[in-house]
Each structure stands twice: as structure tokens, then as C-alpha cells.
């Protein structure tokens, strides 16, 4: 086996032993017209969600379980890394009619 191939298999082994970190992805969700944009139906622990506020208005992305609370003035964006598996419901604390939920797999 060449040294390069050994290195590749070692990296693969490391990735396999730490699935959350290796599979983590970043997803963007746009907030516009008082709606939270769509996200994948199922997310993984370690994934990063970036909310981009394209509305004229200040919004928040506030988890009902208190695990995160992003304050997003008009035009700003902010991100959250999903640290726990489970369903996280969120809402905008300024516009309580705006709601969403995340399904996070381990």
C-alpha cells in the first residue's frame, strides 16, 4: 500500500469513528415576508443553520426549549450549530405568528 493510500484510509477511519463531525453541513434559510424559509426535513447533529433576514423588519429565531435565540435586525444573518438531537420548535419573539421546527437526528 502506498503512503498516500494509507493516509486516505486513516482519514476515512477517523471520519467513520466521528460521524457527526464529518457529515456536518451548513444550510441557509431566508427570512422574508414574515416567513421562515424552508430547511431540509431531517437535519443531523452538528449541522449548522444560517438564517438570513431579508425582510424589512427585525426578527428573532428563538428556540422554545431555550437552546438558542438569534436576534436578527433587518438585513442581518446569524447561525446556530445543532448540538442535540430531537425536535426543536422555534418562533420569532417579535412576530409570534412566525414559527418553524427542526428535526435533528443523532
Amino acid at each position: 500500500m502506498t503512503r498516500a493510500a494509507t493516509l486516505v484510509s486513516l482519514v476515512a477511519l477517523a471520519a467513520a469513528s466521528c460521524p457527526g463531525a464529518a457529515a456536518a453541513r451548513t444550510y441557509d434559510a431566508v427570512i422574508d415576508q414574515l416567513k421562515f424559509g424552508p430547511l431540509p426535513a431531517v437535519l443531523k447533529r452538528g449541522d449548522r443553520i444560517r438564517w438570513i433576514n431579508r425582510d424589512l423588519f427585525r426578527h428573532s429565531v428563538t428556540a422554545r426549549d431555550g437552546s438558542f435565540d438569534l436576534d436578527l435586525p433587518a438585513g442581518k444573518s446569524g447561525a446556530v450549530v445543532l448540538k442535540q438531537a430531537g425536535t426543536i420548535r422555534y418562533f420569532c419573539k417579535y412576530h409570534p405568528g412566525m414559527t418553524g421546527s427542526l428535526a435533528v437526528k443523532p
Partner: protein
Amino acid sequence: MLKPLMAAAAVLALPGISFAEGAKPNDAQVAHIAYTAGQIDIAAGKQALAKSHNKAVRAFASEMVRDHSAVNDKALALVKKLGVTPEANATSSTLTKQADAKRDELAKLEGSGFDKAYVANEVAFHKTVNAALRDTLIPSARNGELKALLKTGLTLFSEHQAHAEHLAQSLK
């Protein structure tokens, strides 16, 4: 024979916002009415922030001041860009007169009496403005950007109406 009568009957039956069918407001008037409605709600929010000690009422009032200011700032920038001068009209002056009377009425109230009356008026005011936006102002607007901003306004004010309705329930 019946036509003039029917036209006369087809005015919006909402207090303060009435345009006879066939007498659609022009864009300068539409802009003035929408802007005036926003300013009225900003003033009402400021009054609530000066008088109320209720955390939820104050949060709602702050939201009204912030959101309506954002829409009105955008509206001012838009009319400037379009070279339209908002035109005062009977509808906007009636709205202002009614709002002045309501503000005087609310000024005499204190504590939870004020909170309940303020929130009840916010429900009623947003209902009136939303009906006017939906039935008269948006269909009347000729300029596409003005129409789009009015639609954003309707989405926002509908959320405000729902928020005010929930708040009114919690104050009972």
C-alpha cells in the same frame, strides 16, 4: 336608474376609510393614506410606551413602533424615487381625526384599563387598515413597487392583528 344608488352603496363600510366605487384613490392618495395609518400606529405605540408598565404590552408597542417605522421609511424612499408627492385627502384626514380622539380617550386611562383599551384599539385599527389595504388600497395602486410594498404591509399588519388579538385574550 339603480346604478348610482348601487355605486353609492358600494363604499367601504369601514369607519374612516371610504372611497366610492369608481372614485379610486390615485397613487399619491394611496401613499398618503398608508403612510398616515403607519404614523398613527407609531404614535399609539409611543403613547403605550409612555404609559404602560405591562411587559407584554410594552413589547407589543415597541414592535409596532419599529415595524411601522420600517415600512414608512421604505414608503418615503419609494415615493421620492418615483417622484410622487403623497397627497392629503378626506380619508387620511378622517383617520387622523379619529386617531387624535382615540389618543385623548386613552390618555385619561391608567394601568390595566389603559392596557386593555390600547390593545383593543390595536385589534380594531389593524382590522380596519387591513380591510382597506386588501379591498381598496392594493387594488387601486397603479405602480408595481407601491403595490408590492402595500402587500408587504398587509402581511405585516395581519401578523400584528393576530398578535394584538392574542394579547387582548391574555389581558382578560
